Every structure is written in structure tokens, then in C-alpha cells.
């Protein structure tokens, strides 16, 4: 494994105290995580352990209080197109159609492309995520699942180095969630992207990840354990249900979360 493609290096986050008094809130402390190129790593932990904050720090949307994030040997401090985020609340532009939302990203990623080239690329991703027929609708007219398909297409279509998924399936109904998870795996295997995802869904984490990072509770949350998922790919949901390795991992992670 080529270690250190994306390096989270001793990162701590402390929010300043309210009204300038006290020590502030130390959300997590000294988190170090190396993610290899093409690897799918998921962080799992209780609400408030700062996993979304860590994801935002990697994205450059928030700043670390101590430590830093290094991508391909370069420190990242600002947002950039090499790290695309898929948001829990989708964050689509509500005044644009699904197509235009994706096109905004593709145009930003490929400023030299002609309009026709951009449109063809967008259409390819529209088809890939199963949005065909809905591309001229605005987000408000789409279901949660369809909106996140737009979110995923927007992120993948720009071919970023790293994809940051912030609980991307949390607001999607359970049946649709499985379908879109499978689509995510398909896109991921087609593009060999490096993925960092945060979730609190244990099954989702095991189904999708190469490794799972377990966080303790906040305040002063820490990265307690990195669990390797040695299940062969492609993984099929139906096969996993009674797979002994899956059940063992599931029990291990649930135990950690319940006791931690």
C-alpha cells in the first residue's frame, strides 16, 4: 500500500469559548490518518465527535487549530477542485436545474472545454448516476435520492483527487440508500478515486470501505482504532448478511461505539 497520499497530520480542533471565557471546546485532538491513493476510508463515531469538522478541514472549509492536512506532499489550507465534497444536505443550487448544477462544476474543472464538450461530459454523468429524464428539473422537484445523485455526479464529474463524503446517505430513505450506495461503489471502481467518508451507519461503512477509522466521544475525541475490512470486492449486500467476517466486524464496531 502506497501510504501517505492524503495525510491528516496531528490535527486538533478547538472552538473558541463562548464570550471569550474559559478554555473553549476541544472537539478532537491529535488525529493522524494516512490514506493511500485509491483507498476508501470511512470515519465513524458518535454525533459531535467532530468527524464532519475534520472532513471540512480536509476540504479547506474550516481550519485546524493544530496540525495540518497534506495532499500529494502539499499542505492544503484552502478549498480546491482537487477535493470535492458531497454534502449531507446536498447543497445544490436551487435556482439551477440538475444538469446546470453538474455543469457548473464541469465548467469550473475544464475552463478550456467548449460548450458542447462540457454538455457531453455532463450528460455522460447524468446517465451514469441514473438522472436521465430528470436533468432539466430543479432540486426542489427531485426526491432526496435524486438530489444526492446530482451531488455525486457533480463531485465525480470533475475528477478530483479526493472525494469527501459527509454522511451522504443520511437524508435518503433506506431503500433508495442501498441503490445509491451501489452506484457510488460503481463510480468509485470506475474512477479509482481516493475517498474519505464520514457516517454513523456501521453497515454502510463496512459495505463501502477498505478501512474504518473509529473515533471516541467528544470532547477531546481521538482516533481510537483503524479497522481493516478484508471482504473481497465486489461486495453484495445479500452475501454480506451472513458472512462471518462481516458479522465479526459489525460486532466489533458496534461494541466499540456502545462502550466507547
Amino acid at each position, binding site marked *: 500500500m502506497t501510504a501517505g497520499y492524503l495525510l491528516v497530520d496531528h490535527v486538533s480542533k478547538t472552538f473558541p469559548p463562548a464570550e471569550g471565557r474559559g478554555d473553549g471546546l476541544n472537539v478532537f485532538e491529535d488525529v493522524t490518518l494516512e490514506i493511500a491513493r485509491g483507498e476508501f476510508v470511512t470515519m465513524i463515531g458518535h454525533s459531535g465527535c467532530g468527524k464532519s469538522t475534520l472532513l471540512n478541514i480536509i476540504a479547506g472549509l474550516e481550519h485546524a487549530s493544530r496540525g495540518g492536512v497534506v495532499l500529494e506532499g502539499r499542505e492544503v489550507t484552502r478549498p*480546491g477542485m482537487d477535493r470535492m*465534497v458531497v454534502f449531507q444536505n*446536498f447543497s445544490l*443550487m*436551487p*435556482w439551477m436545474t440538475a444538469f446546470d448544477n453538474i455543469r457548473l462544476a464541469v465548467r469550473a474543472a475544464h475552463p478550456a472545454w467548449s460548450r458542447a464538450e462540457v454538455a457531453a461530459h455532463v450528460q455522460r454523468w447524468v446517465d451514469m448516476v441514473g438522472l436521465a429524464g430528470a436533468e432539466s428539473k430543479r*432540486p426542489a422537484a427531485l426526491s432526496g435520492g435524486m438530489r444526492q445523485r446530482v451531488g455525486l455526479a457533480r463531485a465525480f464529474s470533475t475528477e478530483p483527487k479526493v472525494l469527501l463524503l459527509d454522511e451522504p446517505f443520511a437524508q435518503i430513505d433506506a431503500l433508495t440508500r442501498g441503490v445509491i450506495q451501489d452506484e457510488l461503489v460503481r463510480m468509485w471502481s470506475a474512477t479509482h478515486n481516493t475517498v474519505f467518508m464520514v457516517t454513523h451507519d456501521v453497515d454502510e461503512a463496512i459495505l463501502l470501505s477498505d478501512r474504518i477509522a473509529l473515533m471516541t466521544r467528544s470532547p477531546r475525541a481521538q482516533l481510537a482504532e483503524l479497522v481493516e475490512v478484508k471482504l473481497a470486492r465486489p461486495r453484495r449486500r445479500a452475501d454480506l448478511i451472513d458472512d462471518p467476517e462481516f458479522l465479526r466486524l459489525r460486532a466489533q464496531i458496534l461494541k466499540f461505539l456502545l462502550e466507547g
Partner: protein
Amino acid sequence: MRRDRLRVLLYSLLIGAVLLGLWQAAVAGKPPGKSIPGPLAVGKTAAEMLAHPFYDHGPNDKGIGLQLGASLGRMAIGYTIASVIAVSLGVLLGLSPVLYRAVNPYIQVLKPISPLAWMPLFLYTIRDSAQAAVLVIVMSSLWPTLANTAFGVASIKRDYLNVAEILQLSWPRRLVTVILPAAAPAIVAGLRISIGSAWVAIVAAEMLIGGTGIGYFVWNEWNNLALTSVIFAILAIGVIGVLLDAGLGRLSRKLAYQES
């Protein structure tokens, strides 16, 4: 729905007929010098004026169409200038909370000043009454658009700006694809209030400067004691005001979006 609309129309016509009837009854039989003219007399004048709206018999005798056209022309210039200034400055203030708070006291002091109060200063400095009237329109339509734009831009959801940040959109592109469309409903609401205040102000300004315009027309007809013309002009001002507002109402519906 259809039934309701029919009833609304019926009641409207009924109320109008009653008002006109009361008006006619109140003035009927009285000699011309003792009361205002009745609706029948006004209707006769209206028919004559609308038959030849664009005649031009020298400075003191022009058709109502020409007079309204002169007012609308002034409005178009002043309102456009004001809107460009207000939207640009509003975007700037909306994006910078510090600047907003620094400038806000000045806006609050300037806002309640009747635009006509500036007239002497404008007349003194530019020494051209037509241009002074245009500046009065600028002053009357500046503040609502400015305040609404600043508010609209300041309340753009963080999510949309984060996406723009991640896509590293250039400044012009960020403005055109994210900031302006996101704030468009608020901006248009401001533009709609502004066009109303401008139309209110132009009548008074034209009474002062004379020459052409519907305001001057009203004052001139008063000097001629042609009250039927005055009343017809008042109605014409109202109708044009409704049309201006309806135009921006359509724009507002077109730019509205539903948060998803």
C-alpha cells in the same frame, strides 16, 4: 377557484359602480365653480385626450401620451442609474459584514429624507432642471434596492458559497452564477419598492421643474382650472403605476426559487 374569481370580478365591478354613482350623485346639479367635475365630465375629457394622445401644440399644450412618455423617459434613466448603483453597492455591503455595519448608519440617515428635499442642491449644482429631476428619481429609488440587495446577499446560505469556494469560481462567475441568482428574489423585491417610490417622486418633481411630464401636466391643468384633465391625469398615474409594478412582479415570479 374559477367561481371565486368570477365573484371577485363581480364585486369589484359593483364597488366601482357604486363609487362612481356616489360621485356623480354628489356633484350632479351643482354649478361648475362650486364642485369638482363628475365622472361623466371626466369620461368625456378622457375620451378626447385618449383620441389624440400624442399631439404637440407648443410647450403648454401637449397630448397626455407625450407627457406620460416624458415622465417615463426620465424615470427610466434615473431608475436605471439608481438600480445599478444600489445593486453593486448592496452586493459589496452584503458580502462584507464589517463594511455593512460601517455604512449602515449613513444609509439609515439618508433613507428617510424625501427625495424632493435634494432638489435645491441639485438645481444649484447642475443648473439644469431636467437633470435635477432625474437625480431626484435616483435618490427616491436608491434606498429600497440597496437595503434589500445587502440583506439578500448577506443571507445567502453558507452552503452555496462553500460550493462556489470549492469550485474556485472566479469573481465574475461567482457573482453571475451564485450570488446574484441566490439574492435575486430579495433584489427584485427591492427594485419593486423602488419603482413605486420613483413614480411617486416624479410627479412632485415635475410639478416643481415644469416643462414636460405628467406632474407638470397636472399642475398646468390646475392653473387652467381644467379639473377634468387633472382627475383623468391622476387616474392615468395610477394605471401606469400598476403596470410598472406588474412588470416587476412578473420578473419576481420568474427569478423565485424554492429552497430544497
